[in-house]
C-alpha cells in the first residue's frame, strides 16, 4: 500500500498561535484514515491543509511540506482550484447550496466548464448512486436541496464531492450533526467508498473510527502523538496519552 499524502515537518500558525507542531504523517492510498483527539488538538486544521482550505484564513502560516502524489501542494506552480478538484471535502454540518438537488451535484462540474446536458445528467446520476441517494431523490431532482433531511443533505454533499471524481476525500466530522440512523448510513457509505477513494476522516466518535478506518492518528495539543493501524491504537497503543484518551479517561 503506497502513501498518497506525505506530511513533512509541518508547523502551522494562526497569527501567533501555533496550531500544529512538527507533524509528520503519511496517508495510505485507497484506505480510510481517521484523525482523533480532543477539541482544539489540531486534527481539523491538519485536514484543511490538505486542500488548502486554510488559505482563506487571515494570518495563517505554514512551515514544512505537504506532498500529494509526490507534488508539493504549497508550491507556487500549483493551481489551488485544480488541487481542490483532486482533494474533495465534506464538512461537519451539511452545507448544500440553496439550489436544486441537481444543481448542487452538478455544481463542481459546471465550475469546470462542463455544459453538455446529457453528460451532466449522467455524472449527477452516477454520483448520487455512489452516495446511495439516487433511489430517494431521483424523482425530485429539481426540488430545493434544503428540503432534504439532515442525513440526506450530508449524503448529497458527499455526492457533490464525488461528482468531480476526486482521488482523496477529506471528511471533517461528517456525522457529528446527524442522528444515529443517518450516521449509520454515512458510515456504511464510507465503507463502500473506501476501495475507490482515499478517505481521511476527522471524528470525535471513537466507535466510528474503529468501525470505518484502517489506520488512526491521535493528536493532542497540536502534536501527532501516535499513528498506527486502528486496532493497535484502540487495543494496544504505545503511548499512555493515547490509552487514556481511547479509554475515555480524558478528552
Amino acid at each position, binding site marked *: 500500500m503506497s502513501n498518497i499524502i506525505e506530511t513533512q515537518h509541518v508547523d502551522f500558525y494562526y497569527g501567533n498561535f501555533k496550531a500544529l507542531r512538527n507533524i509528520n504523517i503519511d496517508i495510505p492510498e485507497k484506505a480510510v484514515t481517521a484523525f482523533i483527539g480532543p477539541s482544539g488538538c489540531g486534527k481539523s486544521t491538519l485536514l484543511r491543509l490538505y486542500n488548502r482550505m486554510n488559505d482563506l484564513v487571515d494570518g495563517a502560516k505554514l512551515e514544512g511540506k505537504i506532498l500529494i502524489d509526490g507534488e508539493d501542494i504549497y508550491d507556487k506552480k500549483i*493551481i489551488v*482550484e485544480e488541487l481542490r478538484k483532486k482533494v474533495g471535502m465534506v464538512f461537519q454540518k451539511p452545507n448544500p447550496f440553496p439550489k436544486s438537488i441537481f444543481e448542487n451535484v452538478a455544481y463542481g462540474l459546471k*465550475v*469546470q*466548464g462542463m455544459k453538455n446536458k446529457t453528460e451532466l445528467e449522467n455524472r449527477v446520476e452516477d454520483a448520487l448512486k455512489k452516495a446511495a441517494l439516487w433511489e430517494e431523490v431521483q424523482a425530485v431532482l429539481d426540488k430545493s436541496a434544503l428540503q432534504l433531511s439532515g442525513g440526506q443533505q450530508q449524503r448529497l454533499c458527499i455526492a457533490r464531492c464525488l461528482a468531480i471524481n476526486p482521488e482523496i476525500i477529506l471528511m471533517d466530522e461528517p456525522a457529528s450533526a446527524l442522528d444515529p440512523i443517518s450516521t449509520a448510513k454515512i458510515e456504511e457509505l464510507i465503507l463502500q467508498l473506501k476501495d475507490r477513494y482515499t478517505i481521511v476522516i476527522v471524528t470525535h466518535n471513537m466507535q466510528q473510527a474503529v468501525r470505518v478506518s484502517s489506520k488512526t492518528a491521535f493528536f493532542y495539543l497540536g502534536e501527532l502523538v501516535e499513528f498506527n493501524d486502528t486496532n493497535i491504537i484502540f487495543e494496544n497503543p504505545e503511548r499512555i496519552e493515547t490509552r487514556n484518551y481511547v479509554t475515555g479517561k480524558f478528552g
Partner: protein
Amino acid sequence: MTAAKKQQIAFLIIRTLSILVVGILFVILGFIIIRGIGVINWDFISKMPEEGMLEGGILPAIIGTLYLIAGSILFAFPIGVMSGIYMNEYLKDGPAKRFVRLMTDNLAGVPSIVFGLFGMALFVNKLKFGDSLLAGSLTLGLLALPVIIRTTEEALKAIDDTYRHASYAMGASKLHTIKKIILPAAFPNIITGLILSIGRVSGETAPILFTVAAYFLPRLPHSMFDQAMALPYHLYVLATSGTDIDKARPIAYGTALILIIIVLICNLMANLIRKIQRK
C-alpha cells in the same frame, strides 16, 4: 477562456469601478476645496452679506445653521436616547416592538421635502410659530430622530448582558442599572450617532425651505420665533439665482466648502470615537 482568466478580467473591472467610486468622492471634495479655499477668510465667516449677497460674508447663514443644529439636537437627542432605551431595555420582542420599529423605519424613509411640508403645515401654520428657528429646528429634529434612536439601540445592544446581571446581582434596580452602568458604557457609541446626525441636519435644505429659511436677512436672528438664513439654503440661492453669476460663484464655493468642512469634522470625530472605542 479559463476560469482563472475570467476571474482576472472580472476582478480588474470590479477594482476599476471601486476606484471610480472612491474617485468620485475625491473629485467632489477636491473640486469644492480647491475652488472654495481661496474665498474663505476671517471676513467671509464673520461679516454680514452685502450688495444683495454678492459681497461680504456669510455670518448669518453660519449662525442660522448653528442655531438650527442646536435646536434640533436639543429636541431630538433626549427623545431619541430615551426612546432607544425604552426600545432596547424595556420593550420585549413582539408585535408592539415590531410596530414601533416599523414606524421609526418609515419615518427614516420619509423624503426630506415631505418633512418640509409637514413642518410648515404643523409648526408654521397650525401651531402658528410662523417661519421661525423654532419651526425649523423641530422639523429637522424629527428628521434626525430615527437616526438617533437607531444608534442608541445599537449602542445598548452592544453592551454585554453580564453588565446588567452583575448590577442586578448587587441589588441595583433596573433604572439605576441603566443610568449608572449601561448608559455610561454605551455613551461613546450614542455620541457617534449624535455627531453623524449633526452632519445630516446641517446640510438639509428641503425641510427648512418653508419653515425657517430666509432668502436674504443681513442680521442675526433675535429669538427663536425669528426667521434665519442657513448655509444649505444660502448655497442653493447663490447657485441658482443667476443675477450675477461671476460674483455669486466664489461665495457659493466658499459656502459649499464651509458645509463640507462641517460634514468632514463630524465624520472624522465619529470615526475617531469609534477607533478609540475599539482600543
